[in-house]
């Protein structure tokens, strides 16, 4: 579904953040990208969504090269992105945002369904402005809801969806991702350090210093990550150094 070929990105000359990422994100699967802070995970999400243009390489969705497409074009082609740090809007309500995400007014029952998935009560939030009156966790959940509401999404990217979300809502979010996996035409890419998300991942890619340190089936990668935890070392330090 989503193919990254030698993806490189430099925000400025002489400072390369993504150093040749090759990755295949299949449809009907949940791929979790993890790794240390500053390794390039969010940068990777942004170049896929088109917020930053790569300096080398190519990005393909369903075999179609989207490298030269801008943000809007990629969105219309089915690339959806939930920001790590959601943006606040004075005057724009939750309903406004969900309508924009859906490309038109969405029925009330659908609003209820998507809001329940992110652990919010529709009647309490639907008319709220997405502004400073919302907590970090609330606005994060609304951000996720905006992506879940998108029509025709092929690639759904969630950047640290767990951040600021309480335990109970997070359980609901896990269920939402499990449901998404059943839609065989969607590739789900989650950037996360969260163990519960890693546990349900079909595929895990560990990114360190702008490179894929190791990638493979979740069942194979997860024990290695956990071993690092167990011995009190950085989970990725002992992994696949030969791939660098």
């Amino acid at each position, binding site marked *: 579904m989503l193919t990254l070929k030698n993806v490189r990105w430099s925000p400025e000359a002489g400072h390369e953040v993504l150093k040749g990422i090759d990755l295949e994100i299949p449809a009907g699967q949940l791929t979790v990208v993890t790794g240390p802070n500053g390794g390039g995970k969010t940068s990777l999400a942004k170049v896929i*969504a*088109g*917020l930053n243009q790569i300096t080398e390489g190519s990005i393909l969705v369903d075999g179609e090269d989207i490298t030269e497409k*801008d*943000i*809007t074009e990629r*969105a*219309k082609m089915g*690339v*959806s*992105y939930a*920001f790590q740090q*959601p*943006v606040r*809007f*004075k*005057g*724009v*309500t939750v309903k*406004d945002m969900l309508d*924009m*995400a859906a*490309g038109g007014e969405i029925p009330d029952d659908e609003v209820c369904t998507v809001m329940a998935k992110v652990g919010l009560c529709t009647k309490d939030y639907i008319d709220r*402005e997405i*502004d400073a009156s919302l907590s970090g966790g609330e606005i994060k959940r609304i951000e996720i809801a*905006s992506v879940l509401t*998108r029509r025709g999404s092929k690639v759904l990217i969630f950047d640290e969806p767990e951040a600021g979300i309480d335990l109970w809502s997070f359980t609901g979010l896990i269920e939402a991702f499990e449901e998404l996996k059943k839609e065989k035409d969607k590739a789900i890419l989650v950037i996360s350090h969260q163990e519960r998300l890693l546990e349900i991942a079909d595929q895990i890619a560990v990114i360190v210093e702008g490179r894929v340190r190791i990638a493979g089936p979740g069942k194979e990668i997860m024990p290695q990550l956990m071993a690092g935890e167990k011995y009190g070392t950085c989970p990725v330090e002992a992994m696949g150094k030969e791939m660098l």
Partner: protein
Amino acid sequence: MDKLTENLLKAISDYTEGGYTGAYNIRENAGCGGRQSTENIEIVGKEDGSGIDIIIKPGTKDENVFIPACVTKGNVHDLVYNDFHIGEGSDVRIIAGCGIHNDDEEEAVHNGIHRFFLGKGSHVVYEEKHLGEGTGSGEKRIDPVTHLELEEDAVLEMITIQLGGVDKSTRTTTGVLKDRAKLLIHESLMTAGEEYVMTDFDVDMDGEDSKVDIVSRSVARGNSYQEYHSKIKGNNRCTGHSECDAILMEKGRVNAAPELYAGHLDAELIHEAAIGKVAGEQILKLRTLGLTEEEAEKAIIDGFLKG
């Protein structure tokens, strides 16, 4: 009434082909374009011809009053004095917009001097839309003056909107609140080109536990200039809040000068102000939902002014 007036009425008020439902007074080019009273709402001309009195009986509920004014040609300098007497315990909606269409070289001006006297326990929603249009070089000016007097437990919600086409506007609002009275104002302004608008709020909270909440949202585009002044005076135990937010686009400029005066130990007064351009992150977010940059900007501004 001519077609221009009809179109302006549709834009600034709830006018339909069937006319208004409820009491109304249409002011057209400084004259009377139609008037109707109802059983509970009487509209009478002032003896000196300077304007009208709108008298709402005590206990009147769920009725609308329409007091629009239109100017459809140049060389009109309309000045009108309208007094609203709101009976105790009534609950009504008043729509009093102003539209100017000017295809001429001479200026067209409307000055509406409105005074509101809200009886005890009354509740009024007051909506005011201002609009300018037309191809003439003559200036379109609207200078509303609104004075509000709220008796005990009265509540006034004022929604005032100016969304373009008015070359110059000075908007003055003063108010005095008695015990437990509440004044809630939401202002939305959009200026473009060489337009100029000045807003000036001056409210005295004299009553114990009175409350004022003023929210002004504005967008200054082109080479337009906006001035915002507000003065909230807490003369008793009370709460006052004003919020002035402005978005700048192109070469638009805004000067916000809020003022708070606390004349009582238990006066709680807050002011918030923010001026800046549309945040790039906001545009990016909406583009990830499939909106173009232009659509995203429009959605952000529409929401901002509405909110």
